[in-house]
Each structure stands twice: as C-alpha cells, then as structure tokens.
C-alpha cells in the first residue's frame, strides 16, 4: 500500500510513477511528483519505481483562469 495525496492506493511490484498517475487518472500535464519528499523529474516518471509504503505527492500546479 502507498498513499497518494493522502489517500491509500494498492501497491504492485514494479509500479512506476506513471503507473500511479494512470491509476489515479491524473492526466494534467503540469504535475510535479514527490516520493517521500524527494522530487522526481518529469522525464523519469516512466522509469522511477515507487517503493511499497511510499508517501507520494502528485501536485497539480495551479492553472486555470
């Protein structure tokens, strides 16, 4: 189990940052991801694995208007 923006999400071995975003249906382009407070560069979303128990923040940068 991991938490994403404070909500629990089932963890699977090999799960990447992109898998997490897909599972949450986070499709916004301006998303910053932090795993246990460490930022993940956008070009590493598909290769960075999320460890079990991780606290993930998927921050949608303010937009709109």
């Amino acid at each position: 189990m991991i938490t994403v923006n404070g909500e629990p999400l089932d963890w699977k071995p090999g799960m990447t940052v992109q898998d997490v975003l897909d599972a949450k249906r986070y499709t916004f382009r301006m998303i910053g991801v932090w795993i246990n407070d460490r930022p993940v560069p956008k070009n590493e979303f598909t290769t960075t694995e999320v460890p079990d128990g991780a606290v993930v923040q998927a921050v949608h940068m303010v937009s709109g208007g």
Partner: protein
Amino acid sequence: MEKMKVLAEWTYTPAPIERGYTRKTLYVNVGEPRMEIKDVSQDMIDTFTGGRGFDLKLLWDAVKDTTKWNDPENEIVLSGGPLCGITQYPGAGKCYAAFISPLSGQTYDSNSGGYWGPLSKFSGFDAVEIQGKAERDIILFINGDEGKIQILESNLKDLNAYAVTETLHEYFAVDEADKRNISVISTGKAAETSYYGCMNMSFYDTRRKVARLKQAGRGGGGTIMRDKKIAAMVVKFSKMGGNLNNVVDLDTLQKVGVKLHKEIHDLDDVQCKMRKVGTAHLNEIMDEYHLLPTNNYKFGQNPAEIAKIHSAVYERLFTQGMPDGCWYGCSMSCAKAVDGFTVQTGPCKGEKVTVDGPEYETVAALGSNIGVYDPLWTIEANFYADHYGMDTISLGTAIAFVCECYELGLINRNDTNGLDLKFGNKDDIMELIHRMAAGKDEFASMVAKGIRYMKKAFAEKFKADARTMEAIGMEGQGVETSEYVPKESIAQWGGYYLTLKGPQHDEAWLIFMDMVNKQLPTFEDKAEALHYFPNFRTWFSLVGLCKLPWNDVEPANNRIVNEPREAAKVPEHVQNYVDIFNAVTGKGIRKEDIITMSEKVYNFQRVFQVRMKQGEAFHNIPLRALGPVFPDEWEARREYYDGKLREIGIDPSGLSTEEKIKKLQEYRLGMWEGLKMAVYKRRGWNKKGIPTLETLKRLGIDYPDVVAVVEKYSKPEDNFE
C-alpha cells in the same frame, strides 16, 4: 465614412513618461462636456500603485454612496499601470477597467488585452476617467500624436463591435500601416438592454489585416458605455518605441524578458500549449477532473461528448503559426483566432469573419454548460456575443440557468415566446441570443439582465418556484459564476464566493491545490491560500500585467528546487516580477511587498463595496455550488458522494437520495460558514466581512473617508475575539 461632427475639442501637451508613470490622468465628462487633466500625487502612487488601484481611487472620489450604475456620476475608469506597455516581458499590455456594476450595484474591475492600455498611457495618461451621459451617440477620441481630445457625434450605422471597430480603425488611420497605432473600445446593441454588456478592446492584426477584439468582458462595462451613449472610445498613438516607459534599468528588463521568452519557447509545447490552443487546452482536463460545467453545473463532465470539444479539435480550428500576442512582445501568444469562418445565422449570415477565441471559458459557457458540443456553433455564439457586446461567461451561465428552469417546468414555451430552450437545443438558443441584441423581446431582455434579475422576474411573472431558482441560479453578489464546477473544493467556494466582486476566477483558482493535491487540509490553510492568492493576483491588475505567463508556463526545475506548496507559487516568476517592477520604477520592492501593495487596494475595494451596499455587502453562495441539488446529480457519482457522507460519519445505506442530499447540504452549509469566518479573520476583517480599523491602519489606507465608512457599519459585537 463621412466626416464626423466635432461636438467638443480640447488640446493638451502629452506628459512625458518617467519610470512607468505620466503622473497625469484624463477626466472627460461626456455630458457637460468637460475635460480636465488631473495630477497624480506621490501618495496615490504609493497607496494605489496604478491600474485597478488608480481606477478605484478615482471612482471612489467620483461617486456618492447612493450612486447607481446608471446615474451620470458613475464612471468607467481605465488604466494600465506602471508596467503596462513594456515590450520586453510577455503579457504587459493589459488594461483594467472599473465601474459600479449593473449586475452587482458595487464596484467591478475587469481586464482586457488589446492596445488601449499602452496607447492611452503613451498618449500621456496613467488613467482615463469617463463620467456623465451624452445626449446622442458619441465617440471619444484621444489623439496622443496631436495632443487632442475630441467628442465626435457618431454617424456609425451599425453599433455592433466588429463593425464599429473595423470602421474606426479605417476612419482614424491615414493608411493601412497606421491602423496598428489605434485601439478602439466598443460594445454592441445587446449592451443597451443587457446588464452584462462587455467592452471590446481592439488591436490591429497586421498579418491578418483585421481588427482583433479582446474583452474586458465581465461586470457590465459595455452596459454603462451605452447608458452614457458612448458608441466607442478611440486612442491613437503612432510613435511606438521600445522604451516609451522610460524605465530605470532597461538591461535587467531585457535580461529577465529573454529568460521568460526562452522558457516559453522551450517548454510551452510540453506544458500548456498556450501558443497552439490558448486556454482551450483546459477543455478535456476540466472534464477529466469533474470540473467542466455541464448543464448548468449539474455535472462536471460528459464523457460521451468531450471528444467533440477536445483541445485537439480547437487546435485544428485555430489558425496556427501566427504571432497571436495581444500586445507587442507577448511570446505566449495565446490570443488564438479562427480565420475565414462563415457565419450561419443572424445579420452577418454568409459573411466570412475572423473570430477571436473561443477561450476555455467560452467553450464551457457557450458549450458544455448549455449542453452544446458543437465547436462551430460555439465559435458562432462567441462571435455574436462579442459583436453584440455581451460577456460570454455571463451569457452562457445565464442561458444555462434558463435551460434548467425550462426543463424543470418553471418556465414554459409560452413564457419564452415560442423558444424551446432545452439544454443543447442550439437553434433556439442562437435565436435567443439574436433576440437579446434586437432588444424587442421581453423574455430575451430578462435573460440579458442576468440570473439575479431573472430569479425575481420569473417568480413574479411566471410564478416560478423561488427556492428552486435560488438553489440552481449560479450567481454570487449578482454576478454569474465563471466556468469551473466548485462543488468539491471548499477552498474554491471561497475562491468564487468570498471575492470582492463575485464569482470570477481571477482572484483565486484553488481547486487542484485543495481538492486534488490535498495541500489545504484545514480552514486555516484554506484561509491562508484565500489571503495569499487573491492578493498576489491583484498585483497584476495594479501594474498592468497578464496573469497567464505567471503559471501557465513554469521553469523546468520549478518542481525540483521548490517544495510542493512553494512550487505552486512559481517562485522564479515571482522574482521576475520583483525584478521587472524595480527595473521599470526604480522602487526596490521585495517579494513580500507584492502582497502588501495588493492588500492596500484589496481592502480599499472591500470598503468601497461596503460603502456602495450601505453595509450589506454580503457573500452569498448558491446550493448548487456546494454540492448536488437533485437526485440525478447525486446518482451520477453515487459512489463518490456516498463516500463523502461516510467521511463525515453518516451511513448512507437506508437513506433515500433526497435524504442524502439534504444531509450533505446541511454539513456543507456549516463548512461554508466556517470557511467564511476563517477567511474574514485572516484578511483582517470582522465577522460581517468589513475590514477593521487596525487593518486600515496597518496598510496605511486609514484616510478619513475610508475610516468613516468602516466606523459607520462596524459594530463591536461583530469583532473577532
């Protein structure tokens, strides 16, 4: 066109610009007629900065406590601000307008691109103040080249925006090249009956060879123009140059500008794609996150139809590869247009036109929110809204309300004078828009006056149920809500309904921070955001900047070098603003000063609202903004909403949908009150939302007449402990 008769004329010597200011404002009374050039004091600069700040200060001095929108002393005040007109940094051509609004009866401020802001400053004025009422249709002409102000008798045959603008660019230019030195403010025929008449501010697009229209759309500025019998306002200035603001540090300005140009060039295609689709990049994103208003905000998405209005569709419709900046030097270039569009209905039927937009707000307002998923229809509705002089947002939200009233049976086909106004019934909705401009149909004229007016009129005339209309009429302080579904973000209830002027997204857009990122868990966190962001964004309106280059592009490392909450503020861009403000004015402000500069004007405007509403400047929120009102809204997301009940300790099993709705409403109304108090307290206001004397003193806005308003309406029992 025949030469227009000069009704009044004055000459002046344009004041030189130093560090972004001319230190002069222009006052014109179109009724008397009279012209005056006023000095700008250092205190006015220190307290009000410029732009909307100057507008409000001049408006405060001009009106009485009892002034109504259609009294002659009401004004339209227009000002860019000290950074307005620089060409080195993207987004620096905005003009801010303020007036007493027909929709709300209090001040409204609205901004527009186009060249009016810069050209009026280059013509010698930090602000232009229009008062009085003319007896017949007039055109106000500011000739910055010759130092001449004229009031001309209009001989325009067609008062609608595209016709007015095209004709006047032609009339005042000596040749084709000269057209770019002109900016026209126009409205349209509908503004004569509507309360949400817009002001279109033009710039001449030399590549397309057409006048483009940007809008100070909201609040009813166009309505006031027509009430004053102003057909158009025109400014001309030909001696364009790269440093007309006479800035202190051109080198820094250029360096910071180049940095942002490069960022936009390198990153926009992988971030917001503003250069290709403008804000319409949000269409499918808002749908995905249940934020796209659908059928009068009942729903937040329509998965079956969204593909038809996907940004990719608009990308194909917008002409690509054009430098679509609405002022020189804006490489963000998001003022997209549809060229060669053939109009299908109404007085322009068969004509080929260039249509500005639609932007996201219009795609939603004159699209999903009224059940229409036909981009070509939306483009036509956008064209006619601008042409007739109506704000697309208020128009769409008002029609959405009408469609729901119609489908609920609160009004019928007899009431609508034969129109079948179901959601998505495009032909009859377009006919309604044409009737609004014609001004002869009583029902159409009611719709043109907005939701607050309709709620009362429908109840009185058609015996429509007032409680239902209160629940579903998406207005706050008399102004129609802009195009985001706020239901599931408590912070955005405040971002919309605890604003100075009504639910417009230019104060705070907190939905992602709050609802998705979960960065604002407590009332205090939300209140802090509802203090910081409205004040931060107010600053753009004081200095003459566009908000979009702040956070619709961000540095590549923004999310690496900043922790999540800071990253949302885009700290590097905030530093850019400090640097360019100092480079222009030589003032030496720090980041923190941005908020204080804004707070002065923000609180002054709040006192202004209290003054105009005789102490009753209340913040209202419709039930629809807080959550589902009808069972079908709940059932569309049953699992989600049942979960929301469980989160607050209510077991939904065994409850009917109506009972569930009632329980969630009760809870959320309590949350609304809690939020309101937390926000008022954080802003330094009392429990009635009136800034305290301490707040006025802290900000240095404790002028005797401002203090007098606060003292008159504040009671000791309304103070926080």
